[in-house]
């Protein structure tokens, strides 16, 4: 058996393939639901209802999708340049740390300035955090997968230290959490009686900007060239080291912005669990979107819905909500496979 490259890929194929992959993932995971002793139909119905079935469910899904769009973009852009940034989780917390450092009273500006300022300092923190592994990769050939992964642990321990130590909010009755973001820095609510906040607009704007950059920007062309074939890109005079470093700043900054939306929007203060693995899930979001920045919005919505729906289903029926993680991981792998099969056909010999 061998793989043969297809020359003309029909458009419908690249559109339908991810959907089919997700469907296949749901069918595979229904085996687990059966094993747990429940009806997959009822479970999936409860899951979809819990994720998308009401205004409140939808608003919660959008709240959860907001950081996922940003971490998904972080992965999508970095992976386009073949910079394997698996450290979005750490960068997210770096952004949250910066927002907490500057936003809990150190500086107070009017909201129109304060909110962009918090995003800016957060993005810089995250960008710099990813710049370190990118520099190590560019100059010392240190594999960035391992360094970004290890930095996640280091950053989380650092947050842990701050929240149990110097940054602990004395008003929080002993809970390890940071002091609240000043009112001027809090992302305004955009729908009454829900937690939906303006971070969503920021995330969607970021996705559109990222799409424009990749499609029409010189840097976008340089990033794609570097990712597809660094040797040829270098030969053609594209500064691949500089491109990699710029990619790192953008990718790290986007992941860090997710930390800002959580601290300044969803929660209002820093805790140890502002991210239930948004950084890692962002990888699945990016792959589901085929690394397309606008596709990231849809993929993030879908995955956020699955997670929220699984929580609801778990309360209603009793299937562990970890089914959402299984479903996401299975979808990730099957989407990879499906996209492979749109580009190649299987052939005997």
């Amino acid at each position, binding site marked *: 058996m061998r793989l043969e490259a297809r020359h003309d890929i029909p458009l419908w194929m690249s559109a339908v393939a991810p959907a089919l992959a997700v469907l296949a993932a749901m069918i595979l995971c229904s085996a687990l639901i059966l094993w747990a002793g429940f009806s997959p139909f009822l479970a999936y119905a409860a899951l979809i209802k819990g994720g998308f079935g009401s205004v409140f469910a939808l608003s919660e899904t959008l709240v959860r999708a907001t950081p996922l769009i940003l971490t998904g973009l972080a992965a999508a852009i970095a992976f386009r340049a073949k910079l394997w940034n698996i450290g979005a989780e750490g960068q997210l917390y770096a952004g949250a740390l910066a927002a907490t450092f500057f936003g809990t009273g150190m500086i107070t500006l009017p909201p129109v300035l304060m909110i962009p300022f918090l995003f800016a300092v957060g993005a810089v923190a995250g960008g710099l955090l990813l710049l370190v592994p990118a520099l190590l990769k560019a100059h010392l050939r240190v594999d960035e997968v391992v360094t970004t992964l290890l930095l996640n642990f280091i950053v989380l321990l650092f947050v842990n230290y701050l929240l149990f130590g110097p940054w602990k909010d004395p008003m929080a009755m002993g809970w390890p959490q940071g002091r609240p973001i000043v009112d001027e820095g809090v992302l305004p609510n955009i729908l009454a009686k829900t937690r939906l906040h303006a971070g969503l607009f920021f995330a969607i704007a970021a996705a559109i900007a990222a799409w424009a950059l990749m499609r029409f920007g010189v840097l976008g062309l340089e990033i794609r060239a570097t990712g597809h*074939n660094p040797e040829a890109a*270098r030969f053609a005079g594209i500064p691949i080291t500089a491109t990699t470093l710029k990619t790192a700043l953008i990718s790290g900054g986007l992941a860090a912005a997710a930390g800002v939306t959580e601290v300044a929007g969803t929660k209002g203060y820093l805790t140890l669990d502002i991210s239930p693995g948004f950084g890692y899930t962002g990888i699945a979001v990016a792959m589901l979107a085929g690394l397309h920045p606008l596709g990231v919005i849809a993929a993030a919505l879908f995955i956020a819905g699955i997670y929220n729906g699984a929580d609801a289903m778990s309360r209603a029926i009793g299937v562990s909500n970890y089914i959402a993680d299984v479903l996401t991981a299975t979808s990730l792998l099957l989407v990879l496979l499906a996209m492979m099969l749109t580009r190649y056909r299987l052939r005997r010999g």
Partner: protein
Amino acid sequence: MSEDRQIVLRLNGITKRFGPLVANDRISLTLERGKVLALLGENGAGKTTLMNILFGHYVADEGDIEIFGRRLEPGSPKEAIAAGIGMVHQHFTLADNMTVIDNIVLGTEPLFALHQNLAAARRKINDLAREFGLHVDPDAKISRLAVGERQRVEILKALYRGARILILDEPTAVLTPQETEALFATLRGMVARGLSVIFISHKLNEVMAIADEIAVLRHGRLVARRPRAGAGKEEIAAIMLGKEIPEPKRTPMPAGAERLRLDGIAVSGENGSGLHDIALSLRAHEIIGIAGVSGNGQSLLADLISGLIRPDAGSMTVNGQPFSEFTPRRAIAAGIGRIPEDRHATGVIGDLQIQENLILEQCRSPRFSAFGWLKGRAIARHAQQLIERFDIRGAAPTTLTRTLSGGNMQKVILARVLEIAPKVILANQPTRGLDVGAATYVHEQLLHARANGAGIILISEDLEELMTVSDAIAVMYRGRLSAPIPAEQITVEKLGGLMAGHGFGEGAQEEAGHAA
């Protein structure tokens, strides 16, 4: 006499398709014991595909194979080896970090045996080496061996496994004329011992020298089969090409101002490779060919002029201006047009569109971008013009470059290079793997650029190509460059001698002895 006429291999109606392309179209062939069968055809004619089917790398869509009267199980190199086939691939299949003996014994013992009998293997290798004149140190690391030695290891691999039919895919591409003679002597020794050989080549002269029988492939079909004796060279060439393609004529032209000058260039490389004391002067309206067995520093020289590496010593002058910052971007800005050795790996980015590849070198120039944003319409118009001017077939500006054929891909690179009206052109193996029509087009374009005042450095392993288009030829040997020989004084013998290191300084000879 029946012993002499024994058929050892029979291919019956082999057909192989890759998508829309028919690489092999109902090919039937036989091979006799103790004979050399040459498989002749130009690049892309389907020779390698056919042999890959025979050796089990591919499975044929139709047809079957008989070896010594028994049907060969398709798609399994293991079965092919067991049936007595050995193959020397054009791209050697050796693990560089391992020793000769490791490479040879790999797969010869049961995989789950608890130990290896290396002493017996070493004895057997030495015996075979003596019998067939294939001397090589069994304990040397492959990375330490010269190209010719690596080829001997490949042949030993096949003999060690008791091959009765040996396939050699373009074996002379990497050899000096003298080494080619030695290889032919080895092959004659093999057929005298009753082995059979299939010799793949696109070089007619070599085929006439070694083959007993000639089979010609064209566009995937077997178009002729002749005994060598009595076959005329011109006749065979006509069959191979199908039609007459006139090779462009190089008309003498007075050289102009100096375009490129290298002085005392040295680049250090791993274990003794590198460049030593390179001097060269290239003038306008001049093509200097660089000959040499591959791996003698041509790649380093090309990388240097392309701006990919910097020299440790010496200086480079482009168009009278000193060139000191060695980056690709500076090289492009200085007016050096670069055609790289490997078009897939370095020339184009297959997953980008043709229009993107065409502006890749200029993407920051105001022609194609402003304030960091690409000028989409200018880029598309530019691509459309070049596609028409260079006759890039089956292409729109937004076509993905990887879907192009090798010849059209090379046209994309030529378009990118020539569009900037370069003062200096570095063409590294520009026709490798192209069919004669596409190669001729490349030569025409280079000669055209020469007429327009460019100085051209043409690196090639194909002596015929060099002698057709060059005004002078210099030879590289172990990182040194000979003085260029003017076209009218060139003979194959002279070049062959230089390629083997004769006529280079003391230092080069000493290093040669050391490495061998």
